[in-house]
């Protein structure tokens, strides 16, 4: 295969032979041929993108007779503000002893007394409780402008953190299993790929049935395998299992695609390298470590980048299966952007969420690029 540097070298040589007129034709043709795509992307992607950017600094509503106003960074500060509040337990004024309730637990003042129109604590005004824990007798409360958004940031990162390596890794395992010419392998390859062809909406509806807490297929299968010892779980209704359930389904749906990409990568590795490794007495793991894996470098970068983008954009599964619940366990950044912008009719706030999302994904993309850069 011709490498990129070879092409550009040849290309430069060729370029030098061209007349000025030819070069001008080439420039004009270049713009002409690229212009339909440039025009379409500009109109239907870049302009709306900048509109969203502008909305984020206003109070624009979806439908409203009120005028639109510039509000500066208000939407962003509401999204991202986090403050710590430390509460002392209530004390008996006479004795100075902490008061305890019937369960012998300390009683703390209501957070709301600090966050709602309290002139002594203007910095807490309008904030809501996000997390709280006890340290000694004191109660530490983390307040945030929008705890649901912070939860969706957390969920989105968690989803990406689990799905990217698992889906990528499982894809590689599948590719290694089916990468040979034995009877029937083609059939398995096809089957593993099938879910990719099925719409995510369809898959999500189908899996709602599988995850059902009562008649669900999954519970029945698990009970069958464990001879009835397994206690049925309401997979999507339980805050601790809902996101993992959606992760599993997403991997099930998408892994076939990445299996095929790994497969393509595997087939570019010259067989002669394996033969050489065999001759030198390398075992299976050593072959993988020193021949297969280095040969898959470019494929790995591609797989990493595509799964990451997919994972950060998590929306359809959530919208169809859980609508962010239970208890915000499955809410995600894009789901919040749609929920605020469209359903709650607050375009400005939804757009601000989108802007934060862009910055986040761009940073992740740049970090990935830095980490996977070619080191010579």
């Amino acid at each position: 295969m011709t490498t990129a540097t070879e092409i550009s070298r040849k290309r430069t040589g060729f370029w030098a032979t061209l007349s000025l007129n030819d070069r001008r034709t080439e420039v004009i043709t270049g713009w002409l041929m690229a212009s339909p795509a440039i025009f379409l992307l500009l109109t239907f992607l870049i302009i709306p993108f900048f509109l969203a950017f502008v909305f984020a600094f206003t109070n624009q509503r979806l439908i409203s007779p009120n005028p639109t106003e510039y509000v500066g960074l208000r939407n962003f500060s509401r999204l991202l503000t986090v403050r710590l509040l430390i509460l002392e337990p209530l004390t008996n004024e006479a004795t100075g002893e902490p008061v305890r309730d019937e369960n012998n637990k300390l009683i703390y003042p209501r957070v709301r007394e600090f966050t709602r129109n309290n002139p002594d604590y203007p910095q807490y005004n309008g904030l809501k409780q996000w997390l709280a824990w006890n340290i000694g007798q004191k109660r530490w409360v983390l307040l945030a402008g929008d705890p649901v958004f912070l939860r969706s940031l957390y969920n989105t990162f968690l989803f990406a953190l689990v799905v990217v390596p698992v889906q990528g890794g499982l894809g590689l395992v599948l590719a290694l299993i089916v990468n040979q010419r034995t009877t029937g392998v083609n059939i398995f390859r096809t089957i593993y790929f099938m879910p990719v062809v099925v719409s995510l909406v369809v898959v999500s509806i189908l899996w709602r049935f599988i995850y059902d807490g009562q008649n669900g297929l999954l519970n029945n299968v698990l009970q069958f395998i464990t001879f009835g010892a397994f206690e049925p779980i309401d997979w999507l209704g339980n805050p601790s299992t809902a996101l993992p359930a959606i992760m599993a389904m997403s991997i099930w749906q998408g892994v076939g695609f990445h299996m095929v990409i790994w497969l393509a990568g595997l087939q570019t590795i010259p067989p002669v390298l394996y033969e050489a490794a065999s001759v030198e007495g390398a075992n299976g793991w050593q072959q993988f470590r020193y021949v297969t894996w280095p040969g898959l470098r470019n494929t790995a970068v591609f797989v990493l980048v595509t799964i990451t983008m997919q994972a950060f954009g998590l929306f359809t599964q959530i919208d169809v299966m859980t609508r962010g619940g239970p208890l915000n366990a499955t809410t995600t950044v894009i789901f919040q952007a749609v929920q605020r912008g469209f359903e709650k009719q607050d375009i400005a706030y939804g757009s601000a969420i989108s802007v934060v999302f862009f910055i986040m994904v761009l940073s992740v993309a740049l970090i990935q690029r830095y980490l996977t850069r070619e080191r010579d």
Partner: protein
Amino acid sequence: MTVKRVKGRWHNVFLVIRYLLMTLLGVVFFFPILFMVVSSFKPDLQILQDTSSLRAFLPVGELSFQNYVEAFERAPTERFILNSLLVTSITVILGLVVNSMAAFALSILRWRGQGVVLSIIIATFIVPFETIAIPLLLLVSRLPWIGADGIVFGWLNSYHVQIIPFIANAFSIFLFVQFFKSLPFELVEAARIDGAGWFQIYRRIIIPVSGPVFATVAILTFLPMWNQYLWPIMVVQQEEYRPVMVGLQYFFQLNVAWGEIMAYLSTITVPVLVLFLALQRAFIESIASSGIKG
């Protein structure tokens, strides 16, 4: 190839284990789809009862096309399928032309600004559609269109509002660029010396050798277009333009009947699956080719 060759008995043991593993995985990947199709032929009550045994995956009991009959009565399903086919296939074809031309200009030709243009195009890859949907709606509702009654403003309720915004695609351009860059440049050079114009080179030289990447892009455009869901809800108000995924909502208001839902899901999924099985090798090989150069 990657597995060490072991002779004799051990070889057979490994083979058995490998096939067992492949079969187990096959069950995991195939059974949910099988369940969907099998259930679409069963009455509601039986679907629920069968979930407690292997019967869930077997075409047993009272089988009939009743669910299909009812699904087609409840929603104009055939119309929705036709709409989706129309929108999807036109987008795919126009997308192939527009994106490959742009990629040709960006990878084979040389012109000032192409580096910047390519970088911007690739950067747009991170914009999820959901985040620009509302501004895009505001935009398309004011765009002019030349129709049968002269120039009208607003693109709602049409096929083109479902097609045009999705023709140009950053990822498609990226795939084309990667592929074109890997082609031997001598091809272009020779044609150029023979006096061929750039457009001719694109059409006569580049397209004929780019089968795999065209197939890849076609498939990667086909799937998301077939699955369009949020956008049609916003821009299509007339039933005659609705696509299949919006039709799904006809089944989730009153009288939720799983049999009918399974029938509708199967109806909109099985054709794509059949298309996939028919063109299976081209499908997989072409997607595979997108990774090699990645």
